[in-house]
């Protein structure tokens, strides 16, 4: 029995180190001084230095780290043309000593080289070659090749090879421990053919194979997906697209080394009709419980139908209607039986509301129904948004919401929830200074009818912006309070303040662009249990340089 085919991190890390050498060669070969080619070079660097102070008996709850820390983000981009080939090189590096920013002190964020003559395209390093939703829609660290011959009957060919790592640290495997990840090797090929002017079809094969466990109990997977996708435009404005995929998966569990084989299928069909005054979307999707894709996008055990209609009734009135239904337990495999979800909604947008030039009202009703053998939930959601301008200078944005959570069967629950918030803002120019005052008032109330309890949140804040465009200076200051009052459980009170300043001094313009910035943040959390109280102050100063 094969519990893990560990070709190993050593092999992959060596490969990636070679890849780095190749990319670096590519970068230097692409250097304009070496090649005398048409070339553009861009670099940006953002450096910031932060001081955090956390105090109080509950300071362990803070997500910040006490003391000084730095963060540096460097990006280099080199692109140009040489003898009919366009090339592009990207490199990014992140440096920090704060583990809440990143687990590593130094990590490569981007490493990519691409060269193309419009027919042949070769990409090395960071590779994002989207095949289709089910087949491949994740980035890999590796390489891809694409052949496209426009205006010919030769099919478009795409090949991908790499590792589906989230970070370059994983690919290099230089570090043990903190950033170790399962080595998920990805190989894929795709053929796409235009069959006439209005129809194309594609065939994809994608295989992903795990090769190394991070934890002894991790499962390893070998996944193969065979996918067909297409798009057809039968009449102007109407697009019909579809995808069908078969998957084979083998799983080797870490616990007992047992091997499990799964076979699944997924397909979807979508029709979008888009032309004034309507946009209509119809969609059907069925993904079997055993369908698996490790580098595509799919939620197994779903049958879904969807209809959406956006209708522009007049210039100022438009309507949105939607209906979504989906269910699980497609093979009857769940002992609890199937669950059905129904989500209809209707909404209207009314511009020039009540004849007001800037008045826009959005009103919507949404219903969520969840239904199975044990429970039947009805959530009724009503939302109202109104935006307007008063007295020619005072902008307002008001939201009202009401939700009724009505649980019919298993756990008796009936909750009412109200949300309400309004913000008023304005903008005044006084000589070379722009003043932007703003106030915010919001709240949330939840009432449980059965246990007769009420929880409430209040928040109010005031802000003030001051910009001096001639000096390339912008700033905002904001302060406020947020309070959670609970019938049962802890009450919480948070007092907050923040200050942001951005300044583009003239001397940095000599480089290309640059900005100095300063950010300050203060939060004071108080609880019913004073042993949880804590305060956090964060000060950050930074410099952005762009060449």
């Amino acid at each position, binding site marked *: 029995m094969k519990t893990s085919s560990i070709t190993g991190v050593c092999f992959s890390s060596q490969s990636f180190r070679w890849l780095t050498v190749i990319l670096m060669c590519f970068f230097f070969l692409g250097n304009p001084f070496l090649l005398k080619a048409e070339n553009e070079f861009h670099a*940006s660097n953002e450096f910031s230095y932060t001081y955090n102070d956390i105090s109080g008996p509950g300071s362990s709850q803070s997500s910040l780290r006490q003391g000084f820390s730095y963060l540096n983000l460097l990006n280099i981009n080199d692109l140009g043309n040489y003898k009919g080939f366009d090339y592009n090189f990207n490199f990014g590096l992140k440096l920090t000593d704060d583990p809440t*920013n990143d687990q590593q002190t130094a990590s490569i964020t981007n490493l990519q080289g691409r060269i193309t003559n419009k027919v042949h395209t070769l990409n090395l390093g960071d590779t994002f070659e989207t095949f289709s939703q089910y087949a491949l*829609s994740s980035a890999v660290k590796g390489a891809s090749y694409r052949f496209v011959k426009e205006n010919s009957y030769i099919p478009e060919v795409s090949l991908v090879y790499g590792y589906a790592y989230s970070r370059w640290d994983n690919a290099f495997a230089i570090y043990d421990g903190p*950033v170790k990840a399962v080595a998920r090797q990805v190989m894929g090929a795709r053929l796409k053919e235009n069959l006439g002017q209005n129809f194309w079809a594609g065939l994809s094969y994608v295989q992903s194979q795990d090769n190394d466990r991070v934890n002894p109990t991790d499962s390893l997977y070998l996944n193969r997906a065979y996918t067909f996708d297409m798009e057809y435009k039968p009449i102007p404005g109407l697009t019909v697209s579809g995808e069908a995929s078969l998957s084979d998966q083998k799983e080797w569990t870490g616990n007992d080394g047992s091997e499990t084989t799964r076979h699944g299928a997924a397909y979807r069909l979508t029709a979008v009709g888009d032309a004034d005054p309507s946009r209509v979307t119809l969609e059907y999707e069925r993904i079997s419980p055993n369908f698996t894709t490790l580098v595509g996008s799919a939620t197994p055990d779903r049958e879904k139908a969807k209809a959406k209609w956006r209708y522009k009734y007049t210039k100022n009135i438009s309507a949105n209607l939607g209906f979504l239904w989906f269910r699980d337990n497609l093979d009857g495999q769940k002992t609890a039986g199937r669950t059905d979800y129904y989500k209809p909604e209707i909404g209207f947008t009314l511009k020039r509301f009540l004849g007001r030039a800037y008045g826009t009202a959005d009103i919507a009703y949404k219903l969520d129904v969840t239904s199975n053998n044990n429970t039947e939930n009805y959530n009724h959601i009503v939302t109202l948004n109104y935006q307007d301008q008063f007295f020619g200078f005072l902008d307002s944005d008001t939201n009202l919401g009401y939700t009724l959570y009505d649980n019919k069967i298993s756990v008796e629950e009936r909750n009412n929830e109200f949300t309400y918030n309004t913000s008023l803002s304005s903008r005044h120019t006084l000589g070379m200074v722009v003043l932007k005052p703003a106030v915010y008032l919001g709240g949330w109330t939840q009432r449980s009818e059965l246990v007769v309890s009420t929880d409430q949140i209040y928040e109010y804040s005031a802000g003030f912006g001051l910009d001096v465009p001639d000096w390339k200076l912008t700033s905002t200051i904001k302060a406020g309070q947020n309070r959670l009052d609970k019938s049962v459980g802890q009450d919480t009170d948070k007092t907050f303040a923040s200050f942001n300043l951005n300044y583009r001094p003239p001397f940095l313009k000599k480089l290309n662009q640059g900005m100095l910035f300063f950010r300050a943040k203060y939060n004071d959390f108080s609880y019913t249990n004073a042993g949880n109280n804590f305060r956090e102050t964060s000060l950050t100063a930074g410099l952005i340089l762009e060449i």
Partner: protein
Amino acid sequence: MKYKSKSLIMIMSFALVLLSFAGAQAKWWIFGESDEEVSISYLFVNKSSFDETGAKITLFKEMLPDGKITISGKAVAGKGKIGSARVSLDGKETWKDANLSEGGAFEYSFSPETGKTYSIFVEVSDTLGKTNDVAATARQLTLSERNIMSFIREALDKLIAAYENHDAKTFMSLVSEDFAGDMTNLDRAIRKDFSSFDDIDLNYTLNNITSDSKGISVSLSYRRLLMSTKTGQSVKDKGVTEFVFKMGDKSARIYSMKNPLIFGITGAPNVATGTVASTTNDPVIIADGRGNVAEVPAQTFNQIVMDDSVRITNNPDGTSTVKTSDKTITVDKNGQQTSGGSNPSETVEKGLRTIISLGHPPMGFSFVNGEVMTAAGDFMITGGGPGFGYGFVEPSVTFVDLGAKSIGSVNEAPATGYANPAGMGVRFEEGHTYAFKLANGKYGLMEVKSVTEEWIPGNPGPPPQPPAMRITMRFEYKYQPSGARQFLP
């Protein structure tokens, strides 16, 4: 069922509403059909459909493999023939001829200047001089001066600000209409998040951005602090997650998200399309559909996050109980698992089976597979009589006779007393329940419901069959795959 009839009524009502609106303008369903004889079937800018781009298009150098923008499409002229196709980049001030094929397909490419906005129109004419609706092709296209990373940061900053401010409308305006987890699910999930969390504090640094012509893949490291409105307690975590963005009118828009989600976490099973493999076992925040929240070890998170039956109970002592379809675990305030494993009552596999034995080959039963099989299994039957089956138990399996009791009354298999006398036959008595300790170390129960015998006369064939006694044994079984001895009802 009750809910089905209600659902039917609801669907029909909804359909009626749709139909009533349909009367507002006749033939709304005839997409784009017009009186114009000359029209454009499809129009693309660098392989993105004009229908999906919106009025304003922002592109980045990183998204232009050859540094060029190509406008392509196909024109039709009813019974006539397309005679010309041209493109304006300056608001119809000047026109450039596009390459036109015999069938009406056309293409025009140009090398854009960074930072410049192009006001694009496309005009196609038939040989009689009739043209398409040129105004409908208007698009403002800009090749951004900024790099794609700053554009993604701007989109993420807007999303986070809207999420922290509980602003669902602004947040959803930054989500692609074809969001892979479905826009409706995400809309409901973030509203549930807003109801469940206060004082949201979300920070990130980018790990990686990679783009192709269809989208932008983003990996980021995040840290967050949430206040649960259910308990008044704060929870925090940090980790790595991934997004795919698509270009929108004014901003990049979310196309898909992976676990651990930073938005819509109360609807993770319906919103996320995959899980980023964790690089540590640091605690990760998980929420159930009711908005209850807990921190669990990353390994546990990966196993349960897509299970829509997850229910979380926040206990008065600060611990949380997380119950899934096959597990119940308890975690402390710091996300460390203090107890857990499978819930014995929920992992038990059970069923009713019938073994029919004609002497040879013996017929057996496997608890692991729940299947009756020929010449294999944990126990096998070769004969018997009224009220008992006779056979043997596989050598690596031990068993104990619990006596005349029903399987339902046995809540726990005994810890000791198992045996398998090698080479000895076994009588399985009707009405008795037996406990088995299997070769894989796990436990099974079996109650003999009935045993009958029937004489089957011989058959000269072909193939010839000798006369035999047919033994039919009906039994109920339970198998506990978790390894526990408990078989709670």
